[in-house]
């Protein structure tokens, strides 16, 4: 029977293996017709939402792979706003608010609070965390 999942990603695309594990898990979930209620990027996991990461061509581009998955399945991808701001991940609103010279949040992500994790988790059958 299909289940609803909330997936929490705590690892950055660089320096951690867990972003890739989470991505592979999500692919397997969707292939088995389960639903992803929400992806929640938290702590160093917020770096996956940067549109400015440019890895060498012979290395995996995890932020691009996340964006592809999110767009393909029209997933709800929320990035913790507090964790994002202090790591330099900003959308246009925050760029204006803090008078910074650039915004870099990927188009398929949205910045919001931890409440979004609780809300998703409360309506999901399972919540799984991929630690850093």
């Amino acid at each position, binding site marked *: 029977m299909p*289940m609803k*999942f909330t997936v929490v990603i*705590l690892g950055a695309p660089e320096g951690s*293996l*867990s972003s890739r*594990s989470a991505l*592979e*898990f999500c*692919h*397997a*979930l969707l*292939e*088995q017709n*389960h639903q992803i209620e929400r992806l929640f990027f938290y702590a160093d996991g917020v770096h996956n939402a940067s549109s400015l990461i440019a890895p060498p061509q012979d290395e995996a581009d995890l932020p691009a792979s996340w964006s592809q998955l999110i767009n393909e399945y029209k997933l709800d991808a929320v990035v913790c706003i507090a964790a994002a701001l202090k790591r330099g991940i900003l959308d246009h609103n925050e760029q204006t608010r803090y008078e910074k010279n650039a915004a870099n949040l990927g188009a398929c992500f949205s910045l919001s609070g931890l409440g979004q994790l609780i809300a998703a988790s409360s309506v999901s*059958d*399972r*919540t*799984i*965390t*991929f*630690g*850093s």
Partner: protein
Amino acid sequence: MSTLHTVNKSPFENNSLTSCLQLCSGEDSILLIEDGTYGGCESSPCREPLTRLMEDGINVYVLENDASARGLHTFLQGVELVDYPGFVKLSCTHQCIQSWY
């Protein structure tokens, strides 16, 4: 409540597997992923408690993709290999998922 415990750190450098083993009981299962796969090897520093838990009926799994990426092919007796689709199935058959990292 049955819990799937995932462990992603090597027991050679981190005590997350040791902590997990102390809290694992009943209908729980353990899935070793990423560097956690080293914990299922015959030379694992957690060999004794892990073997004891398996004798008590706890299922221990190793994520095959991560193990083979590290050249790990032999594991403690009783350890089973799973792939990502198997990981998803374990997530569904247990009532909650606890990550140790």
